[in-house]
């Protein structure tokens, strides 16, 4: 086997070497992918027949697909036969016994983020017993949600408890044949989240995968499905607010949002997967398909994402504006430092009448980072009075990085009003000087200016997230000021 292949094996298959003891051999499938693996996976999860069929269809289609090559990111070819597609959840006993056993670098990052001690333990996967009151907190939440009629559970649980909802909505936004990674995900997804907000219900609290992810320890192929029924409202937070070192290096998730009449979903992501070290070794490949469909009139969806992690981020949270008067929004901050690469943006498909969309994208490149905004705004033949406003700004820090903007605008209706603006610049010497002559260190000044640059996006984030996102940016930029 060639050296590069060997490297790749390390990158994709490796288990995170610091701390976590995760080798429960008997509970993992050997690497490889074929129909038997999918059958076994489905059987293990006790899935109904229709889901297995659905997976197999996806798999058969996936076999006929070619790996997409159009993106602006570079990485060695992935050997999909070299990945284990099922790894049993870690039992609590196998985790580190106390924080002392956890990588001190991780702990110092947690401290910088101001995460309380108990949460640190949870994030690091430390086995905690009943003392940990978050467990009971989680239960209280569950009761409160059930009272409102909100279903919020893991995907596997939903398949067992609410098969009719899964059957009705699964794959209706991102079909199992949609694209290479979506098809792969459909074939082998291990778990994920399911949310259903019934008619007219305003979800009493913000939902977060944070509470659930530790319980189920979802793997690399997760699938999220959120359905907002008529007149409902939900704010959903995704991702980890700390560098959760996922042992699997390829992360190919699918997120589907279904928004019915007068409903609204606000989906916020703070993504900080392991970005690799400063030489670009290791790190997560984050290849995610996210799409929302405003299926009926007056539906609204808002994507907010802060991407500071991952070696490669390749995703385009999209909105299909099918219902009349529906609204799509996309707010994004993507930061690439060291050798990180990001090719991210959004797609706004205007189909219904009087639909509007807003895109605010802020890209920051430092070190050797390559940051690409790629977005599509499409106005269909019948999309009367479609309105789009796009603004993408890039900030360059250092002369080794790159910032690229590739917008696509396709308009088939004269009543459409589309505005697109993009600019690229660096932090001005004047701004830096102004801060520094007031006694602020160069590093803090840069962090302050960058936060100002991202403000339009941060203000869309829920409060706690916004605070953490700001701290995260500061950490991710550390050492990039020369």
């Amino acid at each position: 086997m060639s050296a590069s292949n060997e490297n790749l094996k390390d990158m994709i298959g490796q288990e995170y070497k610091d701390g976590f003891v995760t080798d429960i051999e008997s509970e993992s499938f050997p690497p490889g992918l074929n129909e038997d693996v999918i059958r076994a996976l489905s059987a293990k999860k006790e899935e109904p027949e229709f889901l297995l069929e659905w997976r197999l269809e996806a798999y058969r289609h996936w076999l006929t697909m070619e790996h997409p090559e159009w993106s602006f990111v570079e990485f060695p070819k992935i050997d999909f036969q070299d990945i284990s597609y099922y790894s049993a959840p870690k039992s609590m006993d196998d985790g580190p016994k106390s924080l002392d056993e956890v990588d001190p670098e991780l702990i110092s990052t947690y401290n910088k983020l101001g995460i309380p001690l108990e949460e640190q333990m949870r994030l690091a996967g430390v086995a905690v017993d009943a003392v940990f009151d978050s467990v009971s907190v989680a239960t209280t939440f569950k009761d409160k949600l059930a009272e409102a009629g909100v279903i919020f559970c893991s995907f596997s649980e939903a398949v067992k408890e609410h098969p009719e909802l899964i059957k009705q909505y699964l794959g209706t936004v991102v079909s199992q044949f949609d694209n290479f990674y979506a098809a792969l995900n459909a074939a082998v997804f291990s778990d994920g989240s399911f949310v259903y907000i019934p008619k007219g219900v305003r979800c009493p609290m913000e939902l977060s995968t944070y509470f659930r992810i530790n319980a189920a320890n979802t793997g690399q192929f997760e699938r999220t499905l959120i359905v907002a029924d008529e007149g409902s409202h939900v704010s959903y937070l995704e991702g980890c607010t700390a560098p959760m070192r996922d042992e699997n290096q390829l992360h190919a998730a699918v997120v589907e949002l279904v928004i019915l009449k007068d409903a609204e979903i606000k989906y916020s992501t703070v993504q900080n997967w392991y970005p690799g070290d400063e030489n670009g070794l290791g790190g997560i490949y984050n290849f995610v398909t996210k799409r929302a469909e405003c299926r009926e009139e007056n539906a609204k969806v808002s994507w907010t994402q802060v991407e500071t992690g991952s070696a490669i981020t390749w995703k385009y949270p999209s909105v299909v504006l099918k219902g009349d008067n529906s609204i799509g929004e996309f707010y994004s901050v993507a930061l690439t430092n060291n050798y990180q690469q990001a090719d991210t943006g959004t797609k706004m498909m205007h189909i219904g009448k009087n639909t509007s969309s807003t895109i605010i994208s802020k890209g920051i490149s430092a070190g050797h980072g390559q940051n690409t905004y790629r977005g599509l705004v499409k106005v269909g033949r019948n999309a009367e009075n479609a309105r789009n406003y796009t603004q993408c700004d890039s900030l360059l820090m250092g002369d080794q990085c790159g910032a690229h903007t590739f917008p696509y605008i396709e308009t088939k209706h004269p009543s459409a009003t589309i505005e697109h603006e993009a600019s690229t610049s660096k932090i001005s010497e004047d701004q830096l000087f102004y801060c520094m002559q007031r006694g602020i260190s160069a590093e803090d000044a840069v962090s302050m200016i960058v936060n100002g640059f991202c403000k339009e996006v941060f203000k869309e984030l829920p409060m706690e997230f916004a605070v953490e996102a700001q701290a995260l940016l500061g950490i991710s930029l550390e050492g990039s000021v020369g």
Partner: protein
Amino acid sequence: MSVTHLPNTHYTSLLSAHENNLVGQDVSWLNSLRKKAIEAFSVTGFPTLREEEWRYTNISPIEKKQFAVAEKPGKLDAAFVKAVLLEGCYHLVFVDGFYQAEFSSMDGLSAGVTVSALSEGLSEHESLVKSLLDSTVETPALGFINFNTALFTDGAVISIEENTVLDKPIQLAFISSKEAALKLTNSRNLVLAKASSKASIIETFHSVEESCHHTNVITEVVVEPNANLSHNRLQAESLKAYHIGGVYSRLENNAIFNQSNYTFGANLSRCEIHGTLGEASDCTLNGLYVGQDKQHMDNHTRLNHAQPHAVSNEFYKGVLGDNSRGVFQGRIVVAQDAQKTDAKMNNRNLLLSDRAEVDAKPQLEIYADDVKCAHGVTVGQLDETAIFYLRSRGADKQTAKNMLTFAFANEMIERIDFEPLRMAVLEELLKRFPQAGMKKEWL
């Protein structure tokens, strides 16, 4: 599941059939250049929709029509030529891809300027031609470039000596005669503006009648240090024609290049304006495309900021009515060394009909940090309040709309300094809107 695209056998066979029938067939370096182009084309053929740069423009009609090569110039009415030629210019007239001395005039051309048709002056200017030909088109060469290199029949070669200022613009008039129907013409122009010279070149494209023909024309431009070159392009071919054009330029240090591109004609047109910018050079690209009927107009610009301190300014406007479709693809690449680059790109589109379509793809690719780059795109319709304003002053709705449409397009036309060209472009615009009730004098 990839579908291998096989080059159209009709066109590959044309290449070998006409191998011995072209300008400069006795020049060995040119022959070997053409051979190389033929080989490359035989592999790639014409581009397809699957190629990212061609995703909005389907050229399969060109493949299907199986155009034959125009082998000799058709007959032309002197009055038609006269109408096409601009006052106050030197003229080089090409009919169906062949230089026509009888219509051309270069009287009074100053000593430091070389203007010649390839068919007449190749042997005299061989070293000049050799230094320019294929020097600015980028590799990997596109199918149409190779096709042109393999088959060009004629074209102009222009060289402005150092410190020379040309007194009048040079007009290269390309006319497709009646006989050009279902034929294809390939022309290649070579322009060299030597250090500290100044000149203006105008290319015009007309058809005698509404016939279906295919024009493939490439202009290669080199602007040496401190030289100032203006290049204008007016394409007003028949509404059934297929026009593929390209202007490939290289700007050396402190060079100034102003390119304007006015597209009115052709059923399907695609124009590539590419430039590589040297240190502290200045490049301006202006464009206007006015589409009606089923016209498809693709404008493709690419500016490569290779050196520091260069400035580029790009402004394209589109007016699209009926079933027409406009495409604007612009790309600015800023290399790592190109610090202090200042690049602007702007594209505005006006859709007049609910069947018209516009696709815009403005791209920035930036590898240097101390730069100012911006691009903007708008797609929209006429401002209701502006229409209301005009109507409140007694204009009926259609007149109000026409006035505003004119004003929108006229912004690009007003940028033309050379009066005869401005009038010619204006006339083309007025022709597209006969119902407008607009008078030339108003504008």
